[in-house]
């Protein structure tokens, strides 16, 4: 495949840790914009949306990495952990903006978590991601062995909850959140077929 080779060889040359630097720099830059008027007249809501939207995109990219290798021969596996952990940090930033800058008080935070379904769902998504972030280091991977892969399937429900969260908070009829849910379900469905197909199909063994 003409296109996959250059992508794969470029990917080999970029270290995975560069993603963390990129993610942190982006989050800091957007915060700076918010603090200096670059995000418009309501920076708190804008920041909340920027972090939430980027977290969702990274979750989806993370889910796309395995199908990309299987179906397109593009190998970005070495970035998967960094993508996932960056997604988690952005959800955390999103949650902190919400709690500290937006809602501003502990009893209101608690009230919103129990009373507002879209917040409840978002919070459930965050809680599912938490153990994944905590076990995303080499020691945990080795210690947990095969259980690690089982545990990390929690990304699937977490991504679905994130999309439902987005659908639930939209007002009126909006297409974008629904598109995200469809994309996520598609990526998960590709894994179902993957399970069966992978026995019959020999994975491309290009260097």
């Amino acid at each position, binding site marked *: 495949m003409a296109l996959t080779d250059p992508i794969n060889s470029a990917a080999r040359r970029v270290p995975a840790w560069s993603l963390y630097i990129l993610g942190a720099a982006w989050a800091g830059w957007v*915060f700076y914009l*918010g*603090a200096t008027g670059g995000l*418009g*007249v*309501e*920076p*708190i*809501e804008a*920041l909340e949306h920027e972090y939430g939207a980027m977290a969702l995109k990274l979750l989806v990219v993370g889910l796309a990495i395995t199908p990309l290798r299987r179906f397109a021969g593009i190998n970005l596996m070495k970035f998967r952990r960094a993508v996932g952990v960056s997604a988690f940090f952005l959800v955390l930033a999103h949650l902190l903006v919400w709690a500290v*800058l*937006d*809602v*501003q008080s502990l009893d*209101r935070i608690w*009230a*919103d978590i129990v*009373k*507002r*379904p*879209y917040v409840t769902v978002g919070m459930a998504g965050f809680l599912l991601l938490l153990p994944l972030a905590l076990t995303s280091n080499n020691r945990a991977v080795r210690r947990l062995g095969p259980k690690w892969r089982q545990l990390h399937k929690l990304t699937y429900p977490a991504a679905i909850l994130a999309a439902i969260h987005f659908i*639930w*908070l*939209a*007002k*009126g*009829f*909006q*297409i974008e959140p629904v598109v995200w849910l469809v994309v996520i379900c598609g990526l998960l469905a590709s894994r179902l077929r993957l399970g069966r197909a992978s026995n019959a199909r020999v994975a491309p063994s290009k260097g």
Partner: protein
Amino acid sequence: MAHRWINDLTHDDVTPKALWLNRRQLIAGLTATGAAGLGGPVAAQGSLEPNTWEEITTYNNFYEFGTGKGDPVQNAPAMDTSGWQVTVDGLVDNPGTYDLMDLIGDLETEERIYRFRCVEAWSMVIPWNGFELADLLAKVGVQDGARYVAFETAVIPEVMPGVRRRVLDFPYVEGLRLDEAMHPLTIMATGIYGEPIPNQNGAPMRLVVPWKYGFKSIKSIVRISLVADQPPTSWNKANAREYGFYSNVNPNVDHPRWSQATERRIGGGIFSQRQDTLMFNGYDEVAGLYDGMDLTEFY
């Protein structure tokens, strides 16, 4: 019958335009002139300074032009409001389709500085220019039997991406009970800060009902109908559980998806503190309109 209501939010009437364009400059300017004894009355209002022109005109909900807060200022300028016509029909003495100026040209306008509370729990203070809706209704002649006023927003798909995407069931419609419509606080706004009202804020004429959530204050009006029965309203049609017909600002009745107890004044920056939301948005003089009504049922 203008001037039946006196502003409790006031600002220096003679504030030069260069200053109100930027409130931070305004405050700085007043602090400077305050030393010369000119800033007294304004300084006393503290946080009730009107929002800046930029805040009022770049952060808008006008779903015909898109669902993002920045979409209206991007897309609404394409709307042509010259030759605007308004149809007045239903139980009125003088029904018809009027050129806007024929309908409102002789009504006395005045400045009203009102708090504006969005159902999404943010708020602004806006210096509107407009006339009392009661004056317009008197002019068209309300007939016996009319108990509600229904309003409709323009639908111009070529310049309204939100209409093409059917975000709501357009045209946007709203309504008031006749006594709410006749209340001296209820105005039709045609300007902000003495300038013609920008398209994204509802040009050329919009309703402003300061004790109700912002979505009741329907924009870019093309039809006013006097009717006997409670008219349908757009957000109520979209989601009756979340948006009632009355939609009075009420800190004690939460929206199902978020609390209405507090609000954030736009313009406070990234560390802006929330403030308590006031019953009827602070306009207690309307409480009598709802005597004997359970406002948790009629939300």
